[in-house]
């Protein structure tokens, strides 16, 4: 039954819409459309008085359908559908006309913006007229969560969900959880020892009865939808039995293969059988099959011999990769960050001069468990540097040549690094080249000030133009914009604060999850302010630096937030899905079966008796690709039929 009494509500959004669109004129023109019995404007329709206006008008004017012309449906479609439902109508008797994001905000010309707003409203009137009342489809929820990435974000999220009473799979690509935070020496602004505060959480994850840790694992395939995801995880073998290994290290002693240790960013060496770091969780050795002299066929086997002789006989060189088929209701993505490739910043000479290092390499050097046991040494000759230069914003805030954004944490850790340097080398001199000091955060500004004043750090406001080597010194040429003079410093060590970029698997994972990325390759959030913990793809939540550069407190807060979102989803055994799915008009279907292989969700099948296609509503996602393929026009999408689309086209092209 087409709607007969349509109400049109047009929002000013303060001046956001009314500043460009002549709202009164749009009301006037809407009221003349067929079956529109009521049209009115309001300053803020999403406000309580605005919502009351809609609710009361539906009742007083006996409306059977509503068009709300306001911001994008991505913003408030749910809000207004709820309002309409609370007024006694079916929630699908409401359509949103987007006259802000795709109207007033993109058109300067008031006449044109007003005309377009009118056409957009008219289009929505035509659509809502032909909408059918629908009831949400109820589906069961798998009450388990998958967390991807075992850094501090994944650890916190996994613990929160597990403590909330639900099972968690924590997938980690490397041999241990801990992530970037495990590599840090201290954390700003309190100077807590990073491992000391992270370690207990890692152990808690490992011991938690509700958390299943899958390390050396990668997500291979994701299917399903919110509440019912199916995830295939590929797990490489560790070749070492975690239950038996007591981390004695006899295996590593005899291993002949030596390679750069990733945990120390290549500043130290490790064997092919190794423990990533001393507090690694699980606390066991792991065999790096890629760098082992050979397993198939076995080339060496010394580690196994040593383990059988001196250790606990825990090495099994015949282990095979495993595939896990997981069923979960929600996915938390906490894939973290990597560093921008500093070799691209040729002006600083990273990769050419050994004494130019990244801040994370410097961080490892500060760490008591690092390559120099916490002493600051030049990588080239092992001498203690006297003059050190820190270059902030290295390759950051440079839209033309490198990263356009600010990584948010570098001002803080650089102050800490410079302060630690002065602490460890009291007669040394630390120079920091900076653009601005961005120390927004609790206690952050005070921390930077304290470092600068107490430790006598020399902050120079300006960029460095070039770093080159001369007589065993690194010549740093830059400019101090406050004095307007060029500066030359003959340094022993240069530390680059390079920016954070999404970890290398992010793009691939995003494709599998159908989760969108932003312009810089980080995971997009559903709304930058109001839904920062969710991906636009329902059931996928975001935590940590995979969404945007952030520090540890923000990461932990976001992880707990994402966990509570997942718990919210799991709190009910069922959830409601959009009923705007495909339908078959049986009498038109010829049973050709063209549509059936096109469905990515196997929601279509041919009824063997009637020879007519059938849609499984629980499986259908409503993409509509089957409809476009149907040669007899027997498939249709609920509330976006061909008839509706053409009516909308007519509404916008008719003069």
């Amino acid at each position, binding site marked *: 039954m087409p709607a007969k009494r349509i109400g049109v509500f047009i929002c000013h959004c303060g001046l956001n819409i009314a500043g460009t669109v002549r709202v009164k004129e749009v009301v006037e023109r809407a009221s003349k459309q067929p079956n529109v019995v009521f049209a009115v404007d309001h300053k803020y329709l999403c406000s309580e008085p605005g919502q009351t206006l809609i609710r009361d008008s539906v009742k007083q004017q006996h409306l059977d359908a509503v068009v709300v012309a306001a911001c*994008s*449906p*991505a913003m408030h479609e749910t809000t207004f559908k709820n309002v309409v439902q609370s007024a006694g109508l079916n929630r699908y008797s409401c359509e949103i006309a*987007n006259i*802000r*994001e*795709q*109207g007033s*905000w*993109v*058109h*300067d*010309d008031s006449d*044109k*913006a007003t*005309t*377009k707003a009118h*056409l*957009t409203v008219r*289009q929505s009137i035509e659509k809502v007229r032909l909408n059918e009342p629908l009831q949400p489809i109820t589906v069961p929820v798998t009450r388990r969560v998958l967390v991807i990435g075992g850094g501090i974000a994944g650890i916190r999220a996994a613990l929160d969900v597990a403590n909330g009473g639900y099972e968690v799979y924590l997938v980690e690509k490397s041999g241990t959880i801990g992530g970037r935070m495990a590599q840090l020496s201290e954390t700003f602004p309190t100077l807590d020892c990073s491992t000391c505060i992270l370690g207990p959480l890692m152990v808690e994850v490992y011991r938690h009865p509700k958390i299943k840790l899958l390390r050396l694992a990668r997500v291979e395939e994701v299917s399903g939808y919110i509440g019912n995801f199916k995830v295939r995880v590929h797990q490489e073998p560790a070749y070492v039995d975690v239950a038996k290994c007591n981390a004695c290290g006899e295996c590593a002693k005899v291993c002949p293969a030596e390679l750069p240790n990733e945990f120390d960013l290549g500043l130290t060496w490790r064997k092919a059988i190794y423990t990533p770091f001393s507090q690694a969780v699980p606390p066991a050795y792991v065999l790096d099959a890629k760098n082992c002299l050979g397993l198939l066929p076995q080339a060496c086997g010394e580690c196994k011999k040593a383990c059988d002789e001196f250790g606990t006989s825990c090495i099994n060189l015949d282990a095979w990769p495993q595939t896990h088929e997981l069923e979960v209701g929600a996915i938390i993505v906490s894939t973290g960050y990597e560093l921008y490739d500093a070799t691209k910043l040729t002006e600083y000479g990273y990769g050419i001069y050994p004494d130019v290092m990244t801040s994370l390499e410097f961080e490892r050097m500060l760490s008591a468990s690092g390559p120099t046991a916490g002493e600051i040494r030049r990588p080239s000759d092992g001498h203690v540097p006297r003059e050190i230069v820190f270059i902030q914003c290295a390759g950051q805030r440079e839209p033309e040549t490198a990263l356009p954004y600010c990584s948010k944490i570098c001002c803080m850790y650089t102050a800490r690094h410079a302060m630690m340097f002065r602490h460890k080398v009291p007669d040394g001199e630390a120079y920091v080249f900076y653009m601005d000091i961005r120390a927004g955060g609790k206690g952050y500004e005070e921390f930077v000030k304290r470092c600068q004043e107490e430790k006598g750090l020399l902050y120079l406001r300006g960029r460095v133009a070039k770093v080159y080597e001369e007589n065993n010194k690194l010549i740093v040429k830059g400019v101090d914009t406050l004095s307007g003079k060029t500066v030359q410093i003959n340094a022993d060590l240069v530390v680059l604060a390079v920016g954070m970029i999404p970890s290398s698997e992010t793009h691939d994972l*995003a*494709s599998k999850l*159908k989760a*969108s*990325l*932003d*312009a810089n390759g980080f995971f*997009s959030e559903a709304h930058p302010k109001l839904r920062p913990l969710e991906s*636009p*793809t329902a059931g996928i939540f975001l935590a940590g630096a995979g969404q945007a550069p952030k520090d540890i407190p923000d990461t932990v807060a976001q992880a707990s937030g994402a966990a509570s979102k997942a718990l919210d989803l799991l709190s009910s055994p069922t959830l409601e899905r959009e009923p*705007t799915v495909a339908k078959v008009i049986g009498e038109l279907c010829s049973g050709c079966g063209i549509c059936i292989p*096109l469905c*990515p969700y196997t929601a279509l099948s041919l009824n063997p008796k009637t020879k007519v296609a059938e849609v499984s509503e629980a499986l259908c*996602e*409503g*993409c*509509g*690709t089957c*409809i*476009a*393929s149907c040669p007899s026009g027997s498939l249709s*999408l609920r509330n*976006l039929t*061909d008839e509706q*689309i*053409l009516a*909308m*086209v*007519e509404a*916008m*092209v*008719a003069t």
Partner: protein
Amino acid sequence: MATAFEPKIVGFLCRWCSYAGADLAGTNRMKYPSNVSAIRVNCSGRIDPTLVLKALSLGADGVLIAGCHPGDCHYTNGNIKTLRRFKLLQKMLDQYGIDRKRVRLEWVSAAEGEKYAQVVRSMTDEVRTLGPLNWKTKVELAA
């Protein structure tokens, strides 16, 4: 006095990528011509080529179909199906004597507000240069 020709272009935007990209252009206050009116569809794969032809026959001067980049489709590969159908559609346009430039398929991600604005600008310019299609009048005259 004749006013300058302003083309009417129907935009079919997939909700996950391109509609979100168009919204982003708005959030960032990028400016583009008002000639494209968007219809939000779940997936560009929903767009049956006949819908495009019907839109042109109803009076549209151009049709823009925009979806997620290949590999990024929310529904696995609906956009690839669109691409295949689009190739066939282009051949049909030739047979109808309709310039291929009047129907565009573009990949616009949710992060590409600027790209959406750019697509609308260039397509509006192109169709404006081509002039009115007037298929509706022609169809009516023939009938």
